[in-house]
């Protein structure tokens, strides 16, 4: 009688593993790309006009790529999963809001449709269409929310600290 419940629970557990690896892999790849080209990332970050003092700009450009790599590794290995997913959620929310704001400015500046805006968002994969990037980020945000709420410990080295 419990078979369907068990199978649903098992599917949810496997989905959590997949979500963790997908989110972790994405963070690791994008973070590594930025860490290898910190000056390029610094220049792109400046275009967002988020902070005005050079020290903060340098600090974000220096530390953020490595924080992403760190989160990516923790998620892939399954260490402090829910806490790391919460950090990933916070980072993704900030990135998404910044990309949305920048794409809006570019659409107004070039007098083109929002989804026609293509720019290097500093996300680590060159020039992208704003709508594609925002959709991708929304999917990653959903995965992060799933992991924050999930209690699954499947294939985790140390799910809680």
């Amino acid at each position, binding site marked *: 009688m419990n078979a369907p419940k068990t199978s649903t629970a098992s599917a949810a557990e496997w989905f959590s593993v997949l979500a963790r690896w997908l989110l972790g892999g994405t963070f690791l790849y994008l973070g590594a790309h930025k860490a290898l080209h910190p000056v390029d990332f610094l220049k792109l970050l400046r275009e967002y006009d988020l902070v005005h003092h*050079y020290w903060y700009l340098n600090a974000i450009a220096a*530390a953020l790529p490595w924080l992403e790599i760190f*989160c990516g590794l923790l998620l892939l290995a399954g260490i402090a999963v829910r806490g790391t997913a919460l950090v990933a959620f916070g980072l993704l929310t900030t990135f998404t809001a910044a990309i949305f704001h920048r794409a809006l400015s570019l659409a107004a500046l070039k007098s083109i449709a929002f989804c026609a805006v293509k720019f290097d968002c500093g996300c680590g994969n060159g020039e992208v269409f704003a709508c594609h990037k925002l959709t991708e980020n929304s999917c990653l945000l959903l995965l992060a929310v799933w992991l924050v709420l999930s209690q699954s410990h499947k294939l985790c080295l140390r799910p809680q600290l």
Partner: protein
Amino acid sequence: MNTGDLPARTSRWRGTRQVVGEALLVLLAGSALGFLANCLSPRGLGLAHDFFPNEPKLPVVAITNAASEPPVIAGLKQNGLQWVDAAQARQLFNEPKYLQQQFIFLDARDDSHYQAGHIPGAFQFDHYHPEIYLAGVLSVCQNAEKIVVYCTGGECEDSQFAAVALRDAGVPNQKLFVFTGGITEWNSRHFPVETGAQNSGQLQTQP
């Protein structure tokens, strides 16, 4: 009030507190790792260095709309810098004073771009890594009459920031010129390009 809910609520609260605690720990450890890795990495950024000195404070829209003037020119004017076009740059390059290093060219791009192709004899000055390049370039600048700084061209502002960095380091402003067209325009006019290190003699033949 259902007192049976209390243990469940307490457990949820503990769970939330633990997740937030974990998140803060990850954030702190990740940031500390980031600063440490930046310090140790040869590509690391100098945190206390302003890489965009005197950058235009006008919003991009205002600059771009100002009588259809390219933002780079607006930035040069705002910084009080002089500039040269491709023909003037070539003229300076052809002068005998160029061979005597009275006129010098500075390439403000990174090492990979410099190695891939630069104006023959140009010195490299990647102003994002002053600890590597500034001291060497300053001694050459002190003896030069005219210093032409260039980067990729187009919207690239690195030549402008490099020129300001040199001025801040004591190079007189009247010696400094920014070649706005950069290496892109130099290439498009089929002017000579050198690959590899400075004075490597490996001249690229332009089609």
